[in-house]
């Protein structure tokens, strides 16, 4: 079943995230560029076009590039917060709903801070830079 496999996948992802400790540990030097260890296949296969529009990227990926593999509903579930902090879910938040492009908080080749930390001091312990 689709839901079941999604659930298993989510569990695996969660385990991975939990075991990775500080998110910076997932940023590793590949040939000529830093990237995330969990995306090692892209670098080994020189498959820049997984995210960028070409094999030799000149521009940033489309805002929805990550969502061709990552399921938005799964992400929302993975970062859900207790009821009184419901709208602090970065993947479905009070100011912008589900519309914040992934790369506003996450960096594939560099570390980034969650966008909301410009004003707020919310703690995102599982945050993957």
């Amino acid at each position, binding site marked *: 079943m689709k839901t079941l496999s999604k659930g298993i996948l989510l569990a695996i992802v969660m385990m991975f995230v939990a075991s990775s400790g500080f998110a910076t540990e997932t940023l590793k030097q590949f040939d000529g560029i830093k990237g995330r260890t969990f995306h090692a296949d892209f670098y080994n296969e020189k498959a820049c076009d997984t995210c960028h529009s070409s094999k030799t990227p000149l*521009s*940033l990926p489309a*805002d929805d590039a990550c969502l061709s593999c990552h399921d938005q509903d799964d992400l929302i579930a993975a970062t859900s917060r207790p009821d*009184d902090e419901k*709208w602090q879910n970065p993947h479905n938040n*009070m*100011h*912008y*709903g589900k*519309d*914040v*492009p992934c790369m*506003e908080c996450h960096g594939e080749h560099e570390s980034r801070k969650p966008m909301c930390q*410009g*004003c707020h*001091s919310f703690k995102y312990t599982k945050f993957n830079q």
Partner: protein
Amino acid sequence: MKEPKEGHQTDRRKFLAGMGVAGAAIGLAAPSIALGAVKCDTQWDQEHEIVIIGSGFAGLAAAIQAKRLGAKDVVIFEKMPVFGGNSAFNGGLFAAPNSPLQKKEGVKDSPEQMVADQLKSGRGIAYQELLLHVAKNASKALQMTLDAGAEYFPYLQQLGGHSVPRTYQTVQAVGAGITQPLLNECKKLGVRLVNRAKFDSFIFDDKGKVVGARINQGYYFGRGKKGNPINVRSARGLLIATGGFARNVGLRSAQDPTLTAEVPSTNPPNATGEALLEMFRVGAVPVHMSYIQTGPWASPDEDGFGYVSNYSIYNFAHSISVYPKTGRRFMNEIADRKTRSDAELQCRDDNGKPLPPITITSYEHAKEHPTMKKVLKYGVGWKFDTLEELAKHFNIPLEPLKKQIDEYNGYVKSGVDKQFGKPMEKAKGKYLKAPFVTVRNWPKVHYCQGGAQIDVHARVIDSTSWKPIPGLYAAGEVTGGMHGVSRLGSCSIPDCMVMGMTAAESMMKS
């Protein structure tokens, strides 16, 4: 001062207008030649019926209204990665006279009474005609938000400077409680929403009409990526709804040298006003540029608009603010924003350093608004079981503070504030008693009253002809004049929404 030469600005405007046309061979050297002879050979990359720059209240309301009036092709260009602009950060407070809630609560009000309050706060230089237009149509704008799914608290608030309770607030206590439903409505209606697209300049035709804009597509704010220019034709009109310039330190401190980089702001970092400057470059009239409002309800203990702003806005009516050094009140807690900000800035220690005033509220009244929990949870507000603990924590002399609270409770009973003339209607029966909740207040740059001059049809006025610049419309904080010296709280959303709707109506008639 040199006398301005007649025709000087016309020449300059046309010169710059020519510059705005991509690659056009325009007779720059001969501005005196009849413009009819100049050919506009712009290569258009896109063409739309209505082009809107900015996705805050004004831009979203304009897009929805245009669609409702039958527009087939409406596009919104937003420079940021996300939609909503400063409106998504705003406090979600919406003033409307003769609203359904006023009927329910038995509040007698009228557009004229709201305008009278605004004119008082505007200190004689606010544009009455614009204010009346907005006040008369505020309920219509409120209805647009309700139709789109916005939800409001089931009670009204009486904000500083308002003579009666007339302010709605979204249940999320933030403007996103309006921008999100409006965005969904736009999506439903088929409005094209383009992010990371920054307005660059206007494109004029050979008769001096704005017929489009140059937009940098693929603009990445804060990453040094300027994007690629495209020429976008606007068949019916171009609306500038880009908000204020509270975060443009150069521009704001040029108007008011006290607003240096040291003064924080409630606005997001993108509130920088480039489109406003572009309107001035092509001849729009600058109005009230130095009237830049600071919010007296902000807190020095958090960044941005934060939680304390809405907490204080709600609670000021039944709270007291005291100067820590004396334990005495120093202002009418619901005077207009400028009066209060000016008073707060006077609260200093012996070395002239800021000594932010303490706002004291009874716990039983503070807990009525959901922001209290947040204020306590994020450590920007404090709860005390006794006045002694409170006084000790902030180093306030206890006896004068006790006396002040007794005096104030007398005003609650009599309904007359003998100290500062605060309207006590909303404080009725709300005596100050332990336990208490407190916050510290200090002003932050919040709103730019100044901007480009418009008329009641949202048309941008030209400084040479004093007539509308054809094809160019503006709405919301980017415009100037409406509020004068100081805007009353909860009057920006009706301003933005009504003028956005009005701009759509004007464009659809064109």
